[in-house]
């Protein structure tokens, strides 16, 4: 098939050639593990998610509450002044209706990634997550939504401890 599509020099190989071992090859699955240091801010943010809480940080000089939390304010470069617990509700800032997955697989029922401004945070500050339990055609910017959490026993301190947001 490839040969019909592209007129390139070289030897076109297909999965069949490997499966039937028509060609000699070596295969390798390297063990690539990483540990990414979350830092203080994201570390506590993830810990909070496990407890079903959303944490932000507040800068009193700029009067900004941000989520995800950072340890310093990127406007005035000072340390943030305090931790603020935020609600698990918010407003759709922007969204997209996706009929393909990240690796180009077709979806019959779309995924709806959205930026959600979290209640209690400064306007415009929010997180990227998914919307569900909603007709894709009915999603609007400005829509009020609420987090749907995984059961406590299944949470692992990850953003996926929130399954999705649904309209209130």
């Amino acid at each position, binding site marked *: 098939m490839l040969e019909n599509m592209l007129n390139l020099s070289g030897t076109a*190989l297909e999965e069949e050639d490997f499966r039937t071992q028509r*060609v000699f090859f070596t295969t*390798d699955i390297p063990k*690539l*593990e990483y*540990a990414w*240091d979350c830092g203080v801010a994201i570390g506590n943010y993830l810990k909070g998610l496990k407890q079903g809480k959303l944490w932000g940080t507040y800068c009193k000089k700029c009067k900004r509450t941000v989520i995800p939390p950072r340890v310093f304010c990127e406007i005035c470069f000072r340390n943030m002044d305090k931790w603020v617990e935020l609600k698990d509700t918010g407003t759709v800032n922007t969204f997209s209706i996706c009929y393909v997955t990240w690796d180009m697989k077709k979806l019959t029922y779309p995924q709806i990634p959205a930026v959600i401004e979290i209640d209690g945070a400064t306007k415009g500050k929010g997180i990227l997550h998914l919307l569900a339990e909603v007709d894709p055609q009915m999603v609007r910017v400005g829509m009020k939504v609420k987090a749907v959490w995984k059961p406590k026993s299944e949470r692992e301190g990850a953003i996926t401890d929130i399954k999705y947001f649904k309209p209130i």
Partner: protein
Amino acid sequence: MTKLKFPDAKTGKLAWKGDIPITSRYTSGVAGQRFFQALKEEEKILGTVCSKCEVTYVPMKLFCERCFAELNETVDVGDSGKLISFAVVHVDLDGKKINPPQIIGLIELGNSQAKIIHLLGETKPSDLKIGMVVKAVWKMPLGREGKITDIQHFKPL
């Protein structure tokens, strides 16, 4: 470097752990395919000759690395040769002890001046001499996979 823990009950999550799924396939190529085919099915070690540069390439190559000419002359260099050098290996890639130690030899095949690296077996380091003749010991045909390990090792004649 500080060793990170996951998760830490006191300070929250310190490190996010994950893995990167990667699978690679490396094909032998046109010349490699013929080389391994001959190894697997005919017990032959093939090389290609560049008569202009007077070089024989083993494993065989399609192009001369020196003058970039296409190489059409294939030779069977035979499965025995002269031991040029050897090393006794006591640890593996991860630093674990190998017992008994492996002996790895550099072998010049036939009269080709082409050299390959392979294991030496059925011998011990004290019996090895630079310049001695060694010969390939082949795997049984059924166990062969078209890999250089289809030759189990070389042994002194």
